[in-house]
């Protein structure tokens, strides 16, 4: 079975000469969650956007389920991948239910099946019942909106989910709560996931492996213990020190 996702020696140079990615390679196994950590400008979001062809690599290969994405129609590809942006990215003029049904509708599911699926997923993310289904995004709290975004990403049952700082805009308490649920969802549904975050602690909590990006290079990728025991780079070490000191400060 091929890995769910892989990138091989990917380089991305923007027209203005910026090297956003500079020879990055890694894979994500089926059902595995991999986190990508780095500061803004490190290239982590660009990397994520290569998978659903919102960006094209200057050189190198991007594969989804063993297939080179260059040969897949971008629109069809995106419908095969779940996607959760930082702020939810819900369409403000659509109800919660209609937002969740987005991808099934694009795929041409019939109305009854779409409705049932939306209800099922709203149930899963803890927003059960007609009260939520008929509401508009602005009538929800930030945490609720993010739950709806998760439901939308999962609606067409994609084997892979791309997450672009999905917890970034939430307050600490809501974030903690969603972390717990996220772990449960991905485990229960067996999705492969790429989670982009700037929070190393979050990465360690949610991902099987974590990659650290800086200046377009993947400095190290591995399980939390490996990064902690053998940091491959002074930057990784510094990042770890910061995260660990903060963890101890929190007791």
């Amino acid at each position: 079975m091929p890995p769910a996702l892989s990138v091989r020696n990917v380089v991305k140079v923007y027209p203005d000469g910026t090297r956003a990615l500079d020879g990055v390679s890694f894979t994500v196994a089926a059902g595995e969650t991999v986190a990508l950590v780095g500061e803004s400008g490190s290239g982590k979001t660009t990397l994520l956007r290569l998978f659903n062809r919102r960006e094209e690599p200057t050189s190198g290969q991007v594969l989804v389920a063993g297939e080179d994405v260059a040969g897949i129609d971008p629109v069809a590809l995106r419908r095969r991948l779940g996607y959760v942006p930082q702020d939810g990215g819900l369409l403000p003029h659509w109800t919660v239910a209609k937002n969740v049904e987005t991808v099934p509708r694009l795929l041409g599911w019939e109305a009854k099946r779409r409705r049932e699926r939306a209800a099922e997923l709203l149930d899963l993310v803890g927003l059960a019942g007609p009260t939520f289904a008929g509401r508009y995004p602005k009538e929800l709290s930030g945490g609720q909106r993010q739950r709806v975004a998760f439901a939308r990403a999962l609606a067409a049952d994609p084997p892979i989910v791309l997450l672009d700082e999905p917890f970034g805009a939430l307050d600490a308490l809501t974030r903690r709560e969603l972390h717990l649920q996220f772990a449960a969802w991905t485990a229960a549904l067996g999705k492969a996931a790429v989670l982009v975050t700037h929070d190393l602690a979050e990465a360690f909590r949610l991902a099987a492996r974590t990659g650290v990006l800086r200046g377009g290079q993947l400095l190290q990728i591995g399980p939390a213990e490996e990064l902690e025991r053998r940091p491959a780079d002074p930057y990784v070490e510094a990042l770890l020190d910061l995260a660990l000191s903060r963890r101890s400060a929190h007791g």
Partner: protein
Amino acid sequence: MVRSIERLALLLLLGVGCAAPLAARDGIVVGSKNFEESRLLGEVFAQLIEARTGLTVERRLGLAGTQICFEALRTGAIDVYPEYTGTGLVSILGETSKGGRAAALGRVRSEFLKRFDLHWLAPLGFENSFEIAVPRELAERERLRSLTDLARIAPRLRGGFGQEFVGREDGLLGLEKTYDLHFRSLRSLQHAIKYQAAGAREIDALDVYTTDARLIEHRLVVLEDDRGFFPPYEAAALVRGATLARHPEVGSALGLLAGAFDEERMRALNLRLDQGESEAVVARDVLEALSLVAARPGAKAPSAAEGKVPERAGFFAYLLQERAALWQRTLEHLGLSGLALLLGVLVAVPFGLLLERHRRLAEPMIRLLGITQTVPSLALLAFILPWLGIGARPAIVALFIYSLFPIVRNTYSGVRDADPRAVEAALSVGMTEGQVLRQVRLPLALPIVLAGIRTAAVLTVGTATLAAFVGAGGLGEPIVTGLQLADNRRILSGALPAAALALAVDALLGALERALRPRGL
């Protein structure tokens, strides 16, 4: 929904096509300029042709100014209108006058025939020249008899002249050179207002027409043009050669008017119009008095009351009396502006969307469209006229052009600035560009697009008064006529409903905007 709107649009478009003046091609279309004397002469022509030839006559009276009338005639939108030889010579041919009446008439006759195939029929018998008048008491105190006298004391006087007169070589510009005439101050005033200003002694000298009845009313005396500066302005029917070839009887009928008027008679007729009688009534009286049409049996003393509004009647009494006509004008007004707006929406919204796809073109295009807003309506109509003639079509096209800018601008910026996070998310979950446009950008931009349409609607309803300049009716008609007659009731009877209409349209579209605003925004 969309389909039914398209169907409605198509129906309305077909409506314009039919309503446009391709209808009356076998009748005769009589035009006139938008002042009383010209309207009266147009009406006289019309009634005479009706009575003598049995042809159907369509009236396009009150077209704004020489250029619009002349273009309408040249392009065949009208068949005949009353014109003055001096105007033909100076304003249309761009020549200066040499010699007297006969020379001027001969010159315009041969040139118009050669260049435009237009015929000057035999003059009607009176001249309506430009003259300069001053209040009687001023003339007596300063012993003014001629323009040379006037030039002597002009540096102490305030001049007030018609807008047209000020800028013309055969008007003030030439007069200044010929007489070395320079006033202490100069004001450019609407024709009817000048008389009031002179009456109130706010100005000391003004341009007038020979046959103007208000010379009497406002106690003005005309100064002699002792150096023969003003060209002769003999009135005559100006007719298309093609019309005369098709219906020679029109030429014979109008020929009966040769020499039928003199200045005295014309001044008296103008006075009747000034006092509120309609041109239809006055024209019939003239033709009967000239024995050119049969007197109506039993209709002695042709009801001076008919079409005449009692001088002292209040504004509301006036509105009440005119309500049928005003209602008709209001419907025309709404029809013209509604159609123009509809066309505007059908063109401007897709165009705004197109610009969003080609953003580099957008700013220059929108700026270019913005310029249309600064073009005065008369100038715009003058540009359109050679293609579309007169009547509803040029009016609708002008209004349509005015409606484009606010709609294009709002559509473009609304769609461009639609919540970028929503757009990004929609693309990332697998919508095509087209789906993003239809399902995300447009609904999010809807309130802004509607606001643009609302602006355009108010603008269009407000500007639709321009239709009166090209004989397309609407509430501008009483305004333009009222300005000519210095009749405030008449002006208000057009201006107030037009303003109310604009407010009502604004309120209606405001409500529509709220109703259509996507929930959740």
